[in-house]
């Protein structure tokens, strides 16, 4: 049940999604990954992908145009 971070600031789609997919694959069930993004398209496709996988997802706007996507791996 550890928490990991993934810095994708300054990275455009589809890089954040690819990095997230890879990182989630390395985690264990129950772990939480916090992905930092500032590209609005990643705010759509990263959570969409994670929800489709059945993970728990929360998006937090940390600053104007900067978000944290919090993903709890559920399976």
């Amino acid at each position: 049940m550890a928490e990991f971070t993934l810095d994708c600031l300054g990275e455009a789609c589809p890089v954040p999604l690819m990095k997230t997919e890879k990182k989630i694959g390395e985690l264990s069930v129950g772990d939480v990954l916090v992905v930092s993004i500032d590209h609005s398209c990643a705010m759509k496709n990263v959570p969409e992908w994670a929800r489709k996988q059945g993970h728990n997802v929360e998006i937090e706007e940390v600053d104007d145009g900067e978000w944290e996507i919090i993903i709890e791996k559920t399976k």
Partner: protein
Amino acid sequence: MEKKTEQYDVVIIGGGAASLTAGIYCGRAKLKTLIIEKTLVGGLATYTNEIENYPGFPDGATGLGLMDLFHKQAKKFGVDFKLTDVKAVSLEGDIKKVETFRNVYEAKAVIIGSGGKPRLTGARNEERYLYDKGISFCATCDAAANSGKTVMVIGSGDAAIEEGMFLTKFADKVIVSVMHDNGKMDCNEIAKAQALSNPKMEFLWNTVVDSFEGDERLNTVILKNVKTGEALPVQVDSCFLFIGYLPNTELFQGVLTMNRGGYLITNERMETNLPGVYAIGDVRDKFLKQVATAVGDGAVAGYGAERYLSESEVFKKQVMNEGNPSLVYIYNGVDTYSRELLPLFKDFEQSHSEVRVSCIDIYKSDGIAKRLGVDEGPCALWIKDNQIQEKLEGEITPVEINRICR
């Protein structure tokens, strides 16, 4: 992982037009307000390409653009936003709880604007091809991907026909499966006339979906003629379902009163069966579901929640007097007789310093009277130990007042 608990005055579940409006009203009333939205702030309206009937925008607005403005306005009034799913709720009692996977939010009032989700056909293999595998619910989102292709639309309501016509701008052919007889559609007459004369649109009457077929992706929809039972395979690249919505009310089953379809039942103040819990927008059992009506719902609930919270404060501190003796006179300010009785209570207050006397005008607001189970004045109540001890109706005299206040 331990869930973090946070306190709010009002938590609003859902982030569509109704919820954003409720947020604007609560935020402006200086209530600490949180809106929880599971996907996109703006809700269903963001799926509509053009909104032509929302007043104030004579040139029309895009759903996304309009909802962005709502969002901005709510933020301006200090409303907090959380973009995540609500996992559980507990709505009974004074402090209500709304849980997400990382937090527990405690609120004094909860406003539910959770909207709905698209209804499915229930046909065979439907689950296998949902969303990016060929079955879509949003022409605005997926039309461009169908440029030069053949698509099918299921349904004949406003959404089906209008989105179908939008699809003709991209797709080569739009085949519409309609359940009804030839020429009969559920949409408005203008859309119907336009659709029937659109050369790219083709109609298959008296048909429903029997199954969805394909490999990795959908490539064939097998329709069934409802009259003859005959199967009709149609090759398509995508299929769009516009056959109505189902309310998002699973979390409230057995707790809040709903109709047979699962929509929440409220009164005209948007109050549900539980005090301090409101339902607004498309999740509510109502006559017309539009941005314009959602806004009205949101305003009513936002205002109602604000009044509920201030009345709760007065009720606890003044009326119940925190367990100490309290005499409450409920009167109607426009009724001369009940107004004439007011001096009796003023006199009582002067001679009994140990008793808190409150005179409540139900003409202004009936919230507190309702909490005391009183429908109309004049009525005097003797309260002690947070309970109504005696109730005096009709003949109210100094002798009677002194008799009940023991």
